[in-house]
């Protein structure tokens, strides 16, 4: 005897407590198993690329914060780097070190939110609040530095906008001393939890070929087995002078599953603390902003520059026609590619596994929609 079942069309709608922004999925399921998944994006489309053609280069800097508000410094960094390369602006050494320091601090807190919301989506609320508690320290530090806790608007062409206050480096060191044992505590709480491991292991495996084909970047790519990190392989700023390891997924996880993506982010936080310590110890003493009085008008040309943001590679394709505003600015984000692979990987998963997949890819809606 065989059962005849019908497919159900479910709408995992834009109103959803799954904490990754306003996303919508239209699912075709048979009971619990998904047969087809269609992501529907565009709820956070603000037209940043069109806005870039209307405002001048420095005026667009606050808009870059809003591309990925959890890692705003990284977005600032990519844009500043692109314009500086196109216009040939030099950046002093102190500014470079400050930039890398805040960018890596931002990477730590972005990954904290990522793993925290991952645990929250799995049902464990406490790791999320603990991650937020750690994040508060860094928010306070960055507020000392530039006045804002989330969207910083800190970098300028030729440097950074404010110098570090006195004692800032010491406070950063205190935070790192506080944070490293907390990460072990966090791992004992949730990362090594048997139920968590059962939920994540073997779920939604993304093979190396799929990851490269669909353009996955960042921790997602590293977790699928591709040894690729822009900071080491296409270095920019002062990364050649810093010693750090490119994170490989640990051996107790299956390559390309959700658990390895989770662990890659945890290990990246450890690497970032090492980088921040090096920046703190090597901080040079010259100027923080190579400021020029002239209106910025880069010579005509185009450039594609990419940096390693917490969610992957953030690419800025900038075309200038010699005016004071960009002719075309295209922003290429890591979450965009990650979202495009959901449609391929989702069939065969259960509805609960879809939540796991989305959380493990660390999607964030403003990056997808811009």
């Amino acid at each position, binding site marked *: 005897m065989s059962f005849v079942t019908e497919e159900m069309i479910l709408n995992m709608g834009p109103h959803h407590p799954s904490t990754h922004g306003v996303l919508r999925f239209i699912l075709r399921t048979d009971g619990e198993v998904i047969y087809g998944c269609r992501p529907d994006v565009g709820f956070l489309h603000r037209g940043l690329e069109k806005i870039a053609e209307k405002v001048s280069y420095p005026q667009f800097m606050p808009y870059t914060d809003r591309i990925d508000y959890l890692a705003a410094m990284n977005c600032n960094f990519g844009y500043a780097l692109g314009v500086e390369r196109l216009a040939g602006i030099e950046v002093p050494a102190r500014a470079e070190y400050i930039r890398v320091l805040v960018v890596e601090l931002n990477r730590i807190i972005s990954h904290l939110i990522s793993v925290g919301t991952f645990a929250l989506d799995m049902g464990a609320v406490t790791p999320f609040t603990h991650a937020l508690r750690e994040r508060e320290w860094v928010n306070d530090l960055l507020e000392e530095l530039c006045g804002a806790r989330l969207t910083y608007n800190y970098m300028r062409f030729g440097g950074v906008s404010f110098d570090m206050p006195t004692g800032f480096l010491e406070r950063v060191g205190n935070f790192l001393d506080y944070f490293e044992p907390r990460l072990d505590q966090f791992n004992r709480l949730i990362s090594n939890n048997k139920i968590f491991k*059962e*939920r994540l292991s073997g779920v939604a495996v993304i093979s190396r070929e799929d990851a490269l084909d669909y353009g996955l970047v960042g921790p997602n790519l590293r977790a699928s087995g591709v040894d690729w990190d822009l900071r080491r392989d296409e270095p920019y700023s002062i990364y050649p002078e810093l010693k750090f390891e490119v994170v490989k997924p640990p051996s107790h996880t299956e390559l390309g599953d959700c658990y390895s993506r989770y662990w890659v982010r945890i290990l990246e936080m450890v690497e970032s603390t090492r980088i921040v310590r090096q920046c703190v110890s090597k901080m040079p003493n010259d100027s923080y902003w190579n400021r020029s009085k002239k209106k910025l008008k880069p010579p005509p040309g185009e450039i594609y520059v990419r940096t390693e943001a917490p969610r992957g590679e953030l690419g800025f394709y900038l075309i200038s026609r010699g005016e004071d505003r960009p002719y075309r600015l295209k922003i290429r984000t890591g979450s965009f590619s990650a979202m495009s692979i959901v449609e391929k990987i989702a069939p065969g998963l259960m509805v609960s596994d879809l939540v796991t997949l989305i959380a493990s890819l660390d999607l964030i809606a403003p990056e997808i929609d811009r």
Partner: protein
Amino acid sequence: MDNLVNDLYREFTLFQMIGHDAAAFVVMLACGLAVLTFFGFMGGLFTFLERKLAGWTNSRRGPNRVGPYGLAQFAADGVKLILKEDIIPAEADRTFFRFAPYLVLLGTALSFVVIPFGPRLIISDLNVGIFYLLATGSFTVVGLIMAGWASNNKWALLGGMRSAAQIVSYEIPNALAILVVVLTAGTMSVQGIIRAQAGGVQHWFLFNSPFCILAFFIYFTTSIAEINRIPFDIPEAESELVAGYNIEYSGMRFGVFFVAEFSNIYVVSSIAVICFLGGWQLPGLADAEALGPIGRKVGESLSYPSVLSALMIAMLPCIWFAWKAMRAFSADVLRKSALLPSRLVRMNSELLLLGLLAAFATLALLLHWPLRSRLPSIYELVFQYLVPFLTFFSKAMVIAFVILLWRWTLPRLRVDQLMSVCWKYMIPLGFVCLVGQGFWLCLFNP
């Protein structure tokens, strides 16, 4: 309750006037009301306790605005829920939509018939008490499926279906674990099971045999699955289904689901206490005789007027302090001159509670005067009623504390993992416990 009816019928001519059956009906109503009040109070207390525990686990404080230490939070929440708009979706099945929460409430409230608060504080000591508890626990499933279907919402339906599968599956190992206890005690009556654990901590069924420890573990885990708590709360998984079967419920209908779930925690903890942890028996205090001659002398000198008057006299200064503190507080608020130093202003809520206690003592003193010949002695009241009640309550609270804490520590299991835990691990383990306990009893307790 039968004894109570007979006693009251004998004592009071009022009851003799209305007849035995009517008297029984009145007493039944009164007992039911008392127990339901307790049921509601437990539900409210647990919502508050859970939020406080959640706060402290998440390195923040829980609610602390609404009363002293936030204790009145559940009253405020209750009022809020009553005042909310009652929305029924247009395409929903109205009759079932309205009826479903009450079925869930019924499943939980019916269990209170056989839950003892003391050796004589039980509504009815059925001689199939434990069996009755297992049976009434199944009412909840019907209510949940009804709620899921009647909401006309695919997510609610998914939640309802998952919940039905989960609860029905986990009833089997639940019953197996309880059967182990019934086998050991030899009776299904609740008071019988508790009395079979008399004589101290070593006689608790938890320590009876290794199979009983395993049975406790199975019972504890499966009962968490029965009440839809993490790690088994797939039916109401927040991040996936946005409250599952009770998505469409608002206002007091949702409040009913809510209170039923939290009181269910108490029910399940109390069954664990009854079956494995000795019930209302205080370890070391088998009966009042254990106190010895001094205790007896102290007990005989106690009587209602003396105790209540002592309470009142002790509370008088507290009443005065409380009144002064209230005035100072209100003066502070209204910016007039304060009468007292501010230390007492900060303690005003504690002093207010003490003052209320004193007022209650006065009221009890006044009210007990006409009935003073018929009430049990203070001694009996304390050791036959109060101490067992507090013992039972604190043991149940310890178990409930663990259940509440698990929610904030563990992630949830996926639906197929949940079902495989039940059918592949819990049920075989349950059978092993049952058969093993049978052999153990044959070998060691002839």
